[in-house]
C-alpha cells in the first residue's frame, strides 16, 4: 500500500462531502428560483415582481464603495508597509489596532454607529449614499488588510534594488512594489465585491428596505441581499419563496461573474503571487 493513502482518502471524502452539501444548496436554490427569472424580472422597475432597482442599487453602492475604499485601503497599507519599517512605532500600532477592531466588529454594529453619525447628527436620509458610507467603513479595514498582505508578498529584494538605483520610497512603491503586487490586489478587490454584495443587516439600517420610483443617491437603496431578507420576512406575495430564490440566484451569479472576471484580470496582471525568483 502506498504511504499516506489513508489520510489522502479521508481528505478526499471530506472535500467531496463539503462540495456535495454546497452543490445541493445551490441546486435547490436554482431549482426554486430559476423559473421565476425573466428579462422583465431582471430589468423591470416595479418592486413587487422585478428586481431592476435592487440590481442597480447593488452595483452602484458596491461600485462606489470600491472606488472610495480601494485608494484608502491602499494608502493605509502603503503607509504601514512601505513607510514604517518599524511596526512598534506608536502610530502604526494604533492604526493596526483600529483596523483589526473594525475588521472584527459585527457589521451591524458598524452600521448603527454610522447611522448615529450620518443620519442622527448630519441629517443624511436613509439612502444609497448613507449605505455607501456604511459599506466604506465596513470595507476599509478589509481592503487595508488585504492590501498590506499584497505588499508584504513583494520580495524585499525588489525594494532594495530600486532604492540602490537612487529611487525614493515613493518612486519605489509606485514603480516596483505596486506593479508587482497588482495581481494580488486585483484578486482582493474581487473578494471585497463579493463580501459587500452579500452585506444585508448593515444596509437594512442605513440604506433602507425599499426603492423609490425615481432613482437618486439620496433615495432609499435596497440591495439584492436586503431584498431577499425583506421578501422572506415581510413579503406578502404568494410567490415570495420563488422570488427570493430567484433574487438569490441573480446575486450569486453576479458575484460569481465578478469574482471570475477579477481573477482573470489578476492572472493577466501577473497572478496573485509576485513571481518567485527562481534561479536556474
Amino acid at each position: 500500500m502506498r504511504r499516506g493513502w489513508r489520510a489522502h482518502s479521508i481528505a478526499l471524502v471530506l472535500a467531496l462531502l463539503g462540495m456535495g452539501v454546497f452543490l445541493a444548496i445551490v441546486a435547490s436554490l436554482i431549482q426554486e428560483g430559476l423559473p421565476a427569472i425573466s428579462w422583465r424580472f431582471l430589468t423591470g422597475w416595479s418592486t413587487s415582481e422585478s428586481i431592476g432597482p435592487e440590481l442597480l442599487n447593488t452595483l452602484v453602492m458596491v461600485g462606489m464603495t470600491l472606488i472610495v475604499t480601494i485608494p484608502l485601503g491602499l494608502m493605509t497599507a502603503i503607509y504601514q508597509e512601505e513607510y514604517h519599517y518599524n511596526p512598534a512605532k506608536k502610530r502604526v500600532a494604533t492604526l493596526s489596532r483600529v483596523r483589526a477592531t473594525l475588521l472584527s466588529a459585527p457589521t451591524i454594529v458598524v452600521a448603527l454607529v454610522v447611522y448615529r453619525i450620518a443620519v442622527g447628527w448630519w441629517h443624511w436620509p436613509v439612502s444609497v449614499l448613507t449605505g455607501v458610507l456604511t459599506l466604506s467603513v465596513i470595507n476599509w479595514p478589509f481592503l487595508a488588510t488585504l492590501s498590506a498582505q499584497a505588499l508584504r508578498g513583494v520580495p524585499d529584494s525588489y525594494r532594495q534594488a530600486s532604492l540602490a538605483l537612487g529611487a525614493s520610497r515613493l518612486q519605489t512603491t509606485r514603480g516596483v512594489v505596486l506593479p508587482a503586487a497588482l495581481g494580488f490586489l486585483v484578486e482582493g478587490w474581487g473578494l471585497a465585491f463579493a463580501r459587500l454584495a452579500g452585506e444585508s443587516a448593515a444596509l437594512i439600517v442605513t440604506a433602507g428596505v425599499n426603492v423609490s420610483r425615481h432613482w437618486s443617491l439620496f433615495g432609499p437603496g435596497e440591495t439584492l441581499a436586503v431584498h431577499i431578507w425583506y421578501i422572506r420576512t415581510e413579503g406578502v406575495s404568494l410567490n415570495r419563496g420563488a422570488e427570493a430564490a430567484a433574487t438569490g440566484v441573480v446575486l450569486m451569479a453576479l458575484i460569481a461573474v465578478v469574482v471570475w472576471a477579477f481573477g482573470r484580470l489578476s492572472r493577466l496582471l501577473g497572478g496573485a503571487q509576485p513571481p518567485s525568483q527562481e534561479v536556474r
Partner: protein
Amino acid sequence: MMAPTVRCDQLSVWYGRHPALKSVSLSVQAGEVLALIGPSGCGKSTLLRAINRLLDEVAHIRIAGNVWVDDEDIYQKGVDVTTLRRRVGMVFQTPNPFPFTIFNNVAYGLRLTGKRTQSELRRVVEASLTKAALWDEVRGKLARPALSLSGGQQQRLCIARALAVEPTVLLMDEPTASLDPLSTARIEDLMGQLKGQYTIMMVTHNLRQAARVADRTAFFAKGELVEVGLTRQIFTAPSDRRTEEYLTGRYES
C-alpha cells in the same frame, strides 16, 4: 597617485547595540577591484551598504565616522542620497530583476530621473546590456519578462541595470553566490572587462574568485578590518595570523 574614489575613515556601525563595523579605515583607488573577504557576519556587507547609504533604510542603525565618495563626505547633512546612489551602483547576492520586461528593467533607473526620449532609452539600454555582456543573448527579446532568463543572465541583467545610470563605483555583494560555475565564470570575465572603467568593491566567500579577480583584498573579522593589501601578497604572505588561519580554513570566530 590618483585620489581614492572611496575612502572610509574610522567608520563604525551598530545594529541597535550590536557593533557590526568597528572603526574601519580603508581607501579604494579609482578603477581597481577590491575584494572583501572574511567569515560570515564580519561586516563586509554592512560596509558595502554604508557606501551607498542603503543602511539608512535599516531600523535602529547607528553610524559614526566618515565616508568619502569622489571627494564628497556622504554622511554630511544635505547630501542628496539619490545622486549618491546613482554614482554608486549595487549588485546583490541573489539576482533580483524586477518582474518587468528586460528592457524596462534596464530603463528603470533612467526613467527615475524623468524625461528621456524613447530613442535615447533604447540607446542606453543597448549600451548597458553590451557592457554587461548580455546583449548578444537578449537582442530582439527585450520585451520578454526578465524572470524568464537564466540565473546567470538575470545577474548580468542586474549589472546592466546598475550600469545604465552611469555609476563610478560598483558594489557587488557576493554576486556569484547563487550561480553555477559557468555563469560564475562569465560574471568574473565581465568584471575583468569592467575593471579600470569602474571602481569595484566585491564581497565574496569564494577565495579563488578573490584571487582571480581582485587587485587588492581586504580581510575582515568581527567587524574589524584585519588587513588590506595586494591580493597576491594577502594570499601568499599575510601579515596577520588571523588572515592566514582564514585562508587555510582554520579560522574560528
